[in-house]
């Protein structure tokens, strides 16, 4: 506003100076002036020609307004009047807007300014003002005024206005000490803008802006109202459509904008009340508060938060339910947050996790301890349903603790102990060592039926139970580590996992490393589960240096062998055939085929098989100490009892993909092995 007034006043000064520097030449009076410079603009090569027919022509070779430059600016007045009392231009034309008619007049004694620009399509810009220094006022009346004509007022770095029209009025008033009041009441229609790469753009914007400001001493008191009715806006990464509204009031002392109260209408999400102190230099929020009731989390998250979450586990999550929020920010940090969730929920598009029916009363403060109670009706974790529960979370600044909590999973439960979450710097090497969230807990998994787990996971139905003690699981912002041993009770035996570490847990290809030790697995249960052909006995297995990537084996050293001790050992004809067929068509096992036709089951003394997997190739071996049969043969099943059977392996190396495909064919019952 001060800027506009300054331009008007300086334009009049320009005319005054021109009047002083004139020269008569032939039949016309020509006034020339070299250069006029002011903080608002700079004009050079100014020439005013006054022919004797009563017209006038003003030429400005170069005009700079802010950072913009205009060349060869020309105004022609068909009728030009210059008298001691008045300066007037009638039926004027501006070269830059050739189809518009320009008229203006200024009374030197009355200090009355009148100006108008009329263009086709009903467009009009009318300025009227009383420019007495003791009390001046200026009004700009707009009708279908093309917004793009104001582009020269905008900094060049801002998106350029391409279309749109304004209707309404702008009023400014003041006195010798400066501007004292301002008011705007405008309707915006079909407005569009864009920067060069289209990342900040709008189309067909429509709405109303009303704003008034009044100065008292050094302080401006203002109130405004913006209603965005239609159109769309893309301000990377946000995409918003009409329906938003903002109203507020406050003050401005030249350094700080004080937003005493503001109300923002977010379509589909609800309304939010704001207060704040905004430091104009250096454009920072000194203090602010936000309050909203019954906010719709789905709309709020998807429209205003998710576009900023390109990476991470929340980037493809959806939120549900409603929330009451009250937050207070000061000194660069969130100071307090009151969050009441009502039947809220979150679910991941990849079906990794979901939590539904969440109700909470969270009253968090940066500088005080408190306890939050979070109730939830259920959810899912990696496809397994989770039952209802209640968590009490101890909060102390950015440290969160859950001493004890329980998650009902299938027919068992996961009991968590000493869950800690806090924000701390990442250990080097890291991305600038910025703080990240760290968490740790210990847990025990009370028995879950394997048949329920396998049904949930889409595996063959397994018998037995899964139970585990997890001494400590921790996440340091990069990797999830399991300290101690994970113990699973499956197939009537045990599986102990040690040294487990999951890197890039939320990345495209998570990498898991660790060791597995399986003891006393019941072969009967195992082979029945996987339709391999029945075997009876007990099996131990060691899988060392296991590396999984994207949950696929990358490398490992595995060894399977009969458990120590006395127990019945039987192997069915079908199992023998299947073991043989795993060797492939060119690697038939040497089997005492004469027995095969007569017996369903055979006795055996021990079983052994090993695979060292590297670069997709499995280097196989058999029962320890059975190498040396010549030609690279090794024993997989050593016969014992009557009738006995011995299965030999020939091939030492096989593609892991090929081996797993053969195994799949065998377990799916499609195999037609050739037994010699």
């Amino acid at each position, binding site marked *: 506003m001060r800027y506009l007034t300054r331009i008007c006043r300086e334009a009049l000064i320009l005319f005054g100076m021109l009047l002083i520097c004139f020269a008569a030449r032939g039949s016309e009076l020509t006034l020339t002036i070299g250069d006029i410079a002011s903080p608002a603009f700079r004009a050079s090569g100014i020439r005013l020609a006054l022919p004797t027919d009563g017209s006038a022509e003003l030429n400005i070779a170069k005009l700079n307004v802010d950072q913009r430059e205009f060349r060869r600016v020309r105004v022609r007045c068909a009728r030009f009047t210059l008298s001691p009392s008045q300066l007037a231009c009638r039926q004027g034309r501006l070269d830059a807007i050739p189809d518009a008619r320009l008229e203006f007049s200024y009374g030197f004694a009355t200090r009355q300014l009148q100006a108008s620009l009329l263009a086709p399509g009903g467009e009009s810009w009318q300025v009227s003002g009383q420019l007495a220094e003791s009390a001046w006022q200026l009004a700009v009346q707009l009708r279908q005024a093309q917004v793009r004509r104001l582009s020269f007022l905008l900094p060049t770095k801002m998106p350029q206005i391409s279309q749109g029209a304004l209707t309404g009025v702008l009023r400014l008033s003041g006195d010798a000490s400066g501007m004292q009041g301002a008011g705007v009441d405008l309707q915006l229609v079909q407005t569009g803008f*864009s920067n060069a*790469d*289209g*990342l900040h*753009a*709008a*189309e067909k914007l429509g709405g109303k802006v009303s704003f008034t400001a009044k100065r008292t001493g050094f302080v401006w008191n203002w109130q405004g109202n913006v209603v965005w009715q239609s159109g*769309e*806006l*893309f301000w*990377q*990464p*946000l*995409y918003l459509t009409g329906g938003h509204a903002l109203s507020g009031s406050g003050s401005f002392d030249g350094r700080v904008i004080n937003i005493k109260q503001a109300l923002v209408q977010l379509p589909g999400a609800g309304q939010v009340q704001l207060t704040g102190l905004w430091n104009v230099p250096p454009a920072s929020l000194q203090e602010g508060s936000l309050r909203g009731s019954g906010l719709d989390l789905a709309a709020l998250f998807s429209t205003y938060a998710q*576009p900023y979450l*390109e*990476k991470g586990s929340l980037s493809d999550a959806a939120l549900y339910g409603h929330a009451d929020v009250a937050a207070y920010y000061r000194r660069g940090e969130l100071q307090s947050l009151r969050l009441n969730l009502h039947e809220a929920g979150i679910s991941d598009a990849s079906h990794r996790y979901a939590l539904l029916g969440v109700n909470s009363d969270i009253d968090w403060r940066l500088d005080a301890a408190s306890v939050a109670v979070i109730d939830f009706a259920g959810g899912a974790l990696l496809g397994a349903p989770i039952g209802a529960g209640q968590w009490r979370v101890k909060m102390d600044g950015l440290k969160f603790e859950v001493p004890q909590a329980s998650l009902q999973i299938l027919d068992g439960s996961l009991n968590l102990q000493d869950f800690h979450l806090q924000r701390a710097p990442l250990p080097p090497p890291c991305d600038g060592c910025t703080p990240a969230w760290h968490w740790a807990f210990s847990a025990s998994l009370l028995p879950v039926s394997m048949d329920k787990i396998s049904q949930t996971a889409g595996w063959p139905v397994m018998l037995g139970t899964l139970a585990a003690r997890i001494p400590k699981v921790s996440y340091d912002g990069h990797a999830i580590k399991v300290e101690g041993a994970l113990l699973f009770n499956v197939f009537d035996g045990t599986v102990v996992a040690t040294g487990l570490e999951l890197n890039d847990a939320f*990345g*495209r*290809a998570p*990498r898991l490393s660790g060791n597995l030790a399986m003891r006393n697995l019941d072969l009967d249960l195992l082979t029945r589960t996987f339709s391999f052909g029945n075997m009876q006995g007990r099996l131990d297995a060691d899988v060392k240096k296991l590396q*999984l*990537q*994207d*949950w*696929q*084996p*990358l490398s490992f050293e595995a060894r399977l062998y009969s458990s120590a001790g006395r127990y019945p050992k039987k192997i069915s004809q079908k199992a023998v055939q299947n073991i043989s067929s795993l060797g492939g068509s060119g690697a038939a096992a040497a089997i005492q085929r004469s027995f095969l036709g007569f017996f369903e089951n055979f006795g055996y003394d021990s079983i052994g098989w090993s695979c060292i997997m590297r670069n*997709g190739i499995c280097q196989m071996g058999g029962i320890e100490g059975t190498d040396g049969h010549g030609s690279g043969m090794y024993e997989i099943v050593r016969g014992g009892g009557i009738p006995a059977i011995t299965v030999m392996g020939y091939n030492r190396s096989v593609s892991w993909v090929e081996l797993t495909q053969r195994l799949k064919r065998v377990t799916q019952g499609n195999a037609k092995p050739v037994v010699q």
Partner: protein
Amino acid sequence: MKKLLRYTTAMLTLTVSLNVMAAADLEVNTPGVNAIKSSMQARHAQLSAYYASGAVGLTADGMIALRDASAVPMAARQSVNALVAAENQDRGALYAEIANANAHPEWQAEIRSTFGQRWIQRAQPGWWVQSNGGWMQK
């Protein structure tokens, strides 16, 4: 003489490092590489229209960029933005994974640069690619 020696040493070092790079297996096949490739292939169906329209271009450093968002309807710009971000995340992970699979994590920058050239060579006519710091249409 000293200068010549230094120059020769530098050239030898460069030659050795180029030879090392030449030995890198860019077609390495690990579960990680396969997962990333699958993800990129699935996304390509969505991105190809934007390559063709010039909204998205291939950068010299083996990534992609939203070079002309105005070629995309406004309501779709956010999703294209997300597609570009996800693709670049995968591409970064792919170069790191190939370098790791070759047991030379320090090769990542060279692998990225090599892929950058390869993507640009294989770009279809009409696509926009980065060349000498500017954009050009193939």
